[in-house]
């Protein structure tokens, strides 16, 4: 029942945005609907944590605590970004009057995007999940190219080609899982008697042919890993996330990549039963360490805030992959907490950057100076967000990173922890340096006339609603970090879905 309501709410907002031309009122209504969706997802999470997994529609949809958790993350960040989207779109309209049609399309696609992500985590069939994830690629392509300048076009072209390839590989992986299921325990099973849902896959996992599963899981990690921004097919991510409008970047960086990782986690659970833990561990370690190296080395030379944040997303997905490699219940719980914390903080940072782009007219690091002085609230949120992203207490990222590393060390992956810490220290130094530049650098120096050059932009006020919602987000993150009690039950039971 709750699943139906959640999906219906999402569908309703799609319909609403389809039927009405976008105005500020519609935007506000949409964000209220999204917040209602968030409330329902909390209800779902509560119900599933304290009861059995629920199904609906002839068990087409299925929610255990893992899906409920992902729903929560999706709804949380879409609520956050839809509040900011009002602000962003009003500003776009102010800049260019003839954007009405385009903006209406933008809103429809955004709502479809959220709907597709919800579908991806709530359907029970592996293949339907694949369809939903592919659908997210399709709808977000135009969103990435929203600005329709050269760079945005380039980014969206790269995005759709690379992600289609990745997701296509994942489809073959899915096919081979299915194929393995038709040869259960070495006996040929009629294809139409097999259902492709998680429950039956988990149930049959012991009888799946190990060699087929190895091949299939390799493709799954490569494929969904592409969509999750993991190496080696990660190159679309910095482009797409930096070119998309801020609310979309927030959604993509905050949840979309985690939704793909959710798919990997699900398949990992099956693979672990079929093969034992070592195979998925090795694979995720390779992918995770490679991504971490790449993200670190490329992060150093970034000149633009959104791009820097995008590389940061790769880094965090790598951390998540490493945590998942450890594979104990505690580690997976920490991974999920990290997904939530990273999603929240990254969304906030992208939104703040969007706000900065609106008020300051640029997101280039070298041009942004003494933000803390000029716009104390915005600068403060940005600074706190950065600290949160770097994994400082009291924010939840600290807890999750700490727990992940602890569990990695506990399963004998101490060397991974060492490498991770070194690379994170490098990132820490780089990001602190950039942030110092953006927030504190004294303005009065040689470039004082550049400020005079753009006086009109200076007049723009920081939007109050945005600031408030972002601060609320930060507070939530800190709150989760300090006392994770309300989430603990959900996290542990979700992790149990993976670890069995």
């Amino acid at each position, binding site marked *: 029942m709750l699943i139906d309501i959640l999906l219906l709410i999402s569908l309703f907002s799609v319909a609403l945005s389809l039927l009405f031309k976008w105005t500020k009122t519609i935007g506000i209504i949409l964000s209220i609907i999204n917040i209602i969706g968030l409330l329902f997802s909390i209800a779902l999470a509560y119900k599933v944590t304290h009861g059995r997994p629920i199904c609906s529609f002839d068990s087409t949809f299925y929610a255990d605590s893992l899906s409920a958790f992902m729903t929560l993350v999706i709804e949380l960040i879409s609520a956050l970004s839809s509040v900011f989207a009002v602000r962003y779109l009003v500003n776009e309209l102010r800049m260019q009057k003839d954007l009405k049609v385009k903006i209406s399309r933008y809103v429809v696609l955004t709502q479809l995007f959220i709907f597709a992500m919800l579908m991806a985590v709530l359907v029970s*069939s592996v*293949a*339907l999940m*694949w*369809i939903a994830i*592919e*659908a997210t*690629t*399709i709808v977000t*392509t*135009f969103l990435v*190219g929203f600005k*329709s300048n*050269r*760079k945005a*076009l*380039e*980014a*969206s*072209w*790269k995005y*759709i*080609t690379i992600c*289609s*390839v990745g997701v*296509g590989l994942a*489809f*073959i992986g899915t*096919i*081979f899982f*299915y*194929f393995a299921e*038709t*040869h259960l325990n070495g006996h040929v099973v009629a*294809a*139409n008697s097999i259902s*492709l849902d998680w429950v039956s896959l988990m149930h049959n996992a012991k009888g799946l*042919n190990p*060699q*087929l599963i190895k*091949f299939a899981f390799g493709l799954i990690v490569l494929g969904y890993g592409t969509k999750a921004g993991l190496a080696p097919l990660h190159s679309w991510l*910095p*482009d797409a996330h*930096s*070119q998309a409008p801020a609310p979309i970047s927030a959604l993509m960086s905050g949840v979309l990549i985690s939704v793909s990782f959710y798919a990997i986690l699900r398949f990992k659970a099956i693979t672990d039963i079929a093969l034992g833990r070592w195979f998925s561990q090795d694979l995720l370690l390779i992918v995770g360490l490679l991504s971490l190296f790449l993200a670190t080395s*490329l992060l150093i*030379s*970034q000149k633009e805030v959104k791009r820097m944040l995008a590389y940061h997303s790769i880094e965090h997905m790598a951390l998540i992959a490493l945590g998942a490699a450890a594979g104990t219940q505690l580690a997976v719980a920490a991974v999920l907490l990290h997904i939530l914390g990273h999603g929240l903080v990254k969304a906030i940072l992208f939104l703040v950057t969007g706000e900065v782009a609106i008020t300051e007219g640029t997101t280039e690091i070298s041009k942004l100076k003494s933000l803390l002085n000029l716009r104390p609230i915005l600068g403060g949120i940005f600074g706190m967000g950065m600290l949160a992203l770097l994994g400082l207490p009291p924010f939840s990222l600290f807890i999750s990173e700490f727990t992940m590393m602890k569990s990695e060390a506990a399963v004998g992956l101490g060397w991974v922890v060492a490498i991770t810490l070194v690379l994170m220290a490098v990132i820490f130094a780089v990001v602190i340096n950039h942030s110092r530049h953006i927030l504190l650098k004294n303005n009065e120096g040689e470039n004082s006339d550049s400020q005079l050059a753009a006086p009109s932009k200076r007049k723009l006020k920081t939007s109050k609603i945005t600031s408030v919602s972002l601060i609320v987000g930060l507070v939530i993150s800190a709150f989760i970090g300090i006392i994770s009690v309300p989430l603990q039950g959900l996290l542990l039971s979700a992790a149990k879905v993976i670890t069995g």
Partner: protein
Amino acid sequence: MQLYQATYLSAGCALLFSVIILWRKEIKAMIYSLALQGIALSAIGITEAINKSNYGLGQVGLETLILKGFVFPFLIFKVYKNSSSKRDLQPLINTTASMVYASVFIAISFVSVGRLPYISGNPVFKLAPFGFAVLLIGLFILITRRQVISQMVGLIVFENGISLISLLVLSQLPLLVEFGESFDLLLVVVVLRVLATTIHNEFLKGDLAEMKGLHD
């Protein structure tokens, strides 16, 4: 027994057409080969449907025929008509080397997929490496070509490889999934078409080499 021959033949043709697409430089020839590849795929679906007297598989074959034999090539052809370039003259890797790579890909797919359990023994499953080779060649085209249209063609060859594998290995996916997948694919191609047209208007000749705004 004779019908297996038809399946073998179509699978061979599908792979052959992907090699031809890699080989040719005229975009028109690439598009025609793509259409023929789609037809070869649908032939597999239909012969398998007759072989196994499986009604659903026949539907899949027909759908493949319509989508991959006609709709996709047609959509690409529209982009082609819109563009000014007739040839993709400078792939990142020259054609001779590409051919050698193609043979390496074919070998790889036979060594990897062909050795999987249950694949090698079955008269139909053992064709799965063909699909994997088509997929790898498609990926290679996508990576090494610099024009928008050729990249589109590469992506569709890649997707053809996927559907070749799924046609051969699975007698049938649930129809919902099958159609959902095709629908997604159709949307991808439509989106690509729109993007390609925009890119053609924005960039000279749709040469992606000019896209240097974003890189590290």
